[in-house]
């Protein structure tokens, strides 16, 4: 992934038209524009199927958006530092599976097993990317394959104790309290809040942006870049592990391809939310709205009652359109 030093596309003549003024407004308030888009999708659903948008529907959207939002938090963190993590789906699956197969040891031990996977894979990613300067794409691709392969081998050695999802994880992933508030929000909101506040207002947050913007400049300014990247990938691994727990709580069955479908959306939520894949620009607020947009989109496609392949094609096409529109807008 190498960004050209500058845009080499010849710039056509620009007229200051109404359109570009609107564009300029959106550029200044990107989050506002994204929220408008989200509302437009919701309105679209209500128009297509009147009566769909109810408090229960909204509560379900939040329920389904939470694991994606948590996964996207990790993805946003590494993308801001100029990386990408393709191992998040495998980590989430492995976390869920290990947690489920250790549920007999008690709830907290099981959860620790799950988080341990995230920590371990995150640390390996960090070692390769931060210390040995391997390209994040290859490194996380490799660790993803390793994690998944190890999990398959592990699952076949382990016929005896079948995976079982503990009840508190089930309620974390699918339960609701207080007349419709999804319980997984109690995981997402504090974690999300940490990222949202931490990025602009902590030293580490600033360094993540800085490393993504110019790694060499950070070294020259006395920042030990490897420490920042190492911490970054560990955080991403942990977020993926938490997301895996929430996902398995929702499906109540730990299988080998549990979180595969979340890989593309985790990257797409960050991209749609305005985080640059080249690093240094963006933030988590956009990713949150991006995750909500993608979840609403999924719900819309489900409502349309189209067969799975068609849904998949539409989902991909709309992500691409959104990403393209956003890139044009903010370029």
């Amino acid at each position, binding site marked *: 992934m*190498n960004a050209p030093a500058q845009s080499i596309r010849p710039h056509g003549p620009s007229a200051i038209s109404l359109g570009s003024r609107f564009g300029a407004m959106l550029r200044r308030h990107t989050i506002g524009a994204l929220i408008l888009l989200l509302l437009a999708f919701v309105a679209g659903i209500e128009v297509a199927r009147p009566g769909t948008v109810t408090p229960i529907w909204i509560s379900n959207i939040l329920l389904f958006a939470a694991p994606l939002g948590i996964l996207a938090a990790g993805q946003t963190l590494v993308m801001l530092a100029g990386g990408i993590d393709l191992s998040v789906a495998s980590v989430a699956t492995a976390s869920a599976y290990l947690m489920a197969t250790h549920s007999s040891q008690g709830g907290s031990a099981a959860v620790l097993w799950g988080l341990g996977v995230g920590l371990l894979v995150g640390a390996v990613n960090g070692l390769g990317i931060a210390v040995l300067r391997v*390209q994040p794409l290859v490194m996380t691709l*490799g660790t993803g394959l390793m994690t998944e392969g190890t999990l398959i081998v592990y699952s076949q050695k382990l016929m005896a104790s079948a995976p079982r999802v503990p009840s508190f994880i089930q309620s974390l992933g699918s339960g609701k309290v207080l007349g419709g508030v999804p319980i997984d929000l109690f995981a997402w909101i504090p974690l999300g809040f940490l990222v949202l506040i931490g990025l602009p207002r902590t030293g580490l947050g600033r360094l993540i942006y800085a490393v993504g913007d110019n790694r060499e400049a950070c070294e020259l300014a006395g920042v030990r870049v490897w420490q920042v990247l190492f911490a970054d990938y560990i955080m991403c691994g942990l977020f993926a592990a938490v997301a895996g727990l929430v996902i398995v709580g929702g499906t109540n069955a730990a299988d080998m391809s549990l979180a595969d479908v979340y890989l593309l959306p985790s990257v797409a939520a960050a991209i749609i939310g305005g985080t640059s894949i080249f690093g240094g620009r963006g933030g988590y607020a956009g990713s949150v709205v991006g995750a909500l947009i993608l979840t609403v989109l999924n719900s819309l496609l489900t409502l349309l009652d189209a067969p799975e*392949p068609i849904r998949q094609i539409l989902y991909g096409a709309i992500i691409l359109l959104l990403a393209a529109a956003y890139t044009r807008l903010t370029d």
Partner: protein
Amino acid sequence: MTSANPPHDAGRAGLGRFAQRHPGLVGMPLFLLLFLAVTVAIHPSYSSFDAQSLAMGAMPLALAAAAQTVVVISGGIDLSVGSMIAVTNVLAAATMEHANFGQAVLLSVLVLAIGAAMGAANGLIVVYSRVPDVVVTLTTGFIWSGVALLILEKPGGGAPDRFLSLGAGTFATPWISGALILLIASVAIIWIPVQRSRLGLLLYAIGSDKAAAFRSGVNVERTRFLAYVLGGLFSAVGGIGLIMTTGIGSPLAGVYYTLSGLAAAVLGGVSLSGGRGGMVGPVVAAYVLTLIPTDLIFLNIDPNFGQVIQGTLIVLVVMAGGLVALLRARKR
């Protein structure tokens, strides 16, 4: 992983410089020979049948690696290679099932064109949307795999036996299979003319430094586009190769070939930052990656370890590359 073999070297030095410039041509084949030797050692009854199944197993992967290699050399990445293989594969399987040999050959030309068209779509979107290539091809890969499922809901379809025997048969001796011949022929027919032409130079140029290439008068966007078209074309050959070697269409083959193809390209000495690498390394690396699970079976180890080893191999190779670079930088 630190040197390159761009086309048209005016190289004029000895074996050392050659090896340094063409790590793919030297390192990977040696590695494969070593692997083959180990294979024969642990499994003394290694037969022509084993060699044939190796060639058949490796062929689609080698073509996935070739597809990825073209794009990566040009400084891009294509995470939709596997899905394009799946689409072309099921398209061939669905249309050829009741066709005769002649029709099957004609249909494969059509399938190749569709593969190139999918690549062209990737290229156009990458160039005109300005969305980063990783995101574009991750998404189009998602779309193509939906298309594959649309064509063929579950594994099935087929092709005339005579068509299949092109890949599954053998030539001259039982050691030389059709799959091997087809692989070498298709890579040579597509890649050698490209590499010899100006296009080859342009691919390496934009992969190495887009801005400098642009200022040197290269049409960067057209070249990037063509790289993706070539990637689609190689993927289509891979899709046809997959039906020749398995006999059916597999709509879910995508993920495996995307990831393993990229792995083979990286192991074969293609630098992900673009501009460096050749075609031989990745193709041979595909053979090594195919040989690993086979060896595990011979050793009575769970072949599922294959994926672990594949992942570990990628991680170790790239980390070793990083370590070497790090030590060299320290020493300097």
